[in-house]
């Protein structure tokens, strides 16, 4: 019962942010680049949440930020899951020598900070939303790969995999029929965690000027800009943070809940 409550809470929180992001594609209270408002206006009828230094509508910026947060989270997680998942699968199946080498390489990649990767990608492709996603996704893939490797090895040791082999099931089919379905519940929960970390990582990349270019500011950038005006216009600093927390917590609850509902072994009683 409590699981249901958490799942529903997760759906509501994520739907809220995703809804905002979708709406922002068609409609925002003001155009993204509009600077016609006054400097740091408080909330009012015209600007519902007030404006920033340049007179941009805060609600508009938050809505666009939602779009970026969702894009960064989904994009980075998708990239990390694919690249990391494939690398982890390879290591999981590899012979000992290859496995050791891959594991050492993963250790090194994990030791390198995301920041360095981000600088590399930005230097190669220019600062953009895509670059941020690629950088975060690549950094994430090392962590995903490490986890995948362990999970894959565990599944491969199960009797049902041996049985599949004795029935002449091909390796690719074993991967899609047994390995992936059995690792995804754990992966999903971890990827949800990574989703949150990706959105937070984008915030610090934006902080260092490596995020998407203006006027499409992410929440991280909003937070950073508003940090200097937190005394005069606190909403600007609080609102993006709250949305960030809403999204990250929502995604985690959603993933936990989905696992519980979608995983047959957790449904009903034991």
């Amino acid at each position, binding site marked *: 019962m409590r699981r249901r409550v958490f799942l529903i809470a997760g759906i509501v929180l994520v739907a809220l942010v995703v809804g905002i992001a979708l709406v922002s594609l068609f409609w925002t209270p003001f155009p993204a680049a509009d600077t016609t408002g006054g400097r740091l206006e408080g909330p009012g009828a015209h600007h519902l949440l007030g404006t920033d230094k340049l007179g941009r509508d805060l609600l508009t910026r938050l809505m666009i930020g939602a779009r970026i947060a969702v894009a960064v989270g989904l994009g980075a997680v998708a990239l990390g899951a694919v690249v990391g998942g494939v690398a982890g699968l390879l290591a999981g199946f590899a012979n000992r020598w290859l496995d050791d080498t891959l594991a050492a390489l993963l250790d090194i990649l994990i030791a390198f900070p995301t920041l360095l990767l981000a600088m590399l990608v930005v230097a190669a492709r220019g600062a953009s939303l895509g670059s941020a996603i690629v950088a975060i996704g690549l950094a994430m893939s090392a962590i995903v790969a490490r986890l995948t490797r362990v999970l894959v090895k565990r599944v491969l040791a199960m009797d049902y995999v041996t049985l599949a082999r*004795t*029935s002449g099931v*091909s390796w690719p089919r074993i991967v899609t029929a047994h390995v992936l379905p059995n690792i995804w519940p754990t992966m999903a929960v971890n990827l949800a965690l990574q989703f949150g970390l990706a959105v937070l990582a984008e915030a610090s990349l934006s902080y260092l000027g490596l995020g998407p270019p203006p006027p499409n500011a992410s929440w991280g950038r909003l937070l950073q800009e508003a940090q200097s005006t937190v005394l005069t216009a606190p909403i600007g600093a609080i609102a993006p943070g709250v949305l960030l927390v809403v999204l990250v917590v929502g995604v985690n609850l959603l993933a936990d809940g989905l696992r519980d509902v979608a*995983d047959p*072994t957790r449904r009903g009683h034991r």
Partner: protein
Amino acid sequence: MILEARDVGFRYPSGAPVLDGVSFGVTPGRSVALVGESAAGKTTLLRLLLGLRRPTSGSVLFQDAPLPTGHRAARDFRRHVQTVFQDPYSSLDPRQKVSRIVAEPLRALGFTDHAPRVSAALSAVGLPVDAADRYPHEFSGGQRQRIAIARAIAVEPTVLLADEPVSALDVTTKVRIIDLLAELRATRGLTLVLVSHDLAAVASLCDETVVLERGRVVEQGPTGAVLGSPQDAYTRRLIASIPRLP
């Protein structure tokens, strides 16, 4: 001989020899038991017979030819030889419905009529039709073992290799599964290779018995002869250990 081990020796890459000069064979329609205490190498031998591992020395023959290699060539072998394992929990993928589990070898071996074969196999092992739509965790240990057997017989194999298929079950269930296997043997002419240390099961199911001790065959012959007048000290000890009803 449909399946035969000829002077087979084996060691795992990271260990001491497990099998040493093992020879035995099974003719179509007969059943052979491999008995021996834990770590004697029964499961390992089974793996070799299944072609999951290659013997370090000697050879394994299927229909008097070496085990085929390669995916295509092995298909015929796989169609003829199916397996049931001891642990009814880890041998069923917890995230697949029973229908998919049973259909897996059908799909892999190129059968097209999945649905009728799945329900035929399920009813052959005495499971209700609606079992197909459920997940393994919704079944008891005995029922799971039936699912595993249904999976093995769905492709109508000629040989069934079973690794301790009843050891994890309680007495009542054990008897039911033994009956089921006996029935399948009778109705389908199934050749059975049974790995077990449970001599009651062996006595109920197998024509011949091979006794393994630490990777060597110490005794083999008709089950009645091996159990009735054991020659080897280990076999005698094994028989003496069996608890009997008062």
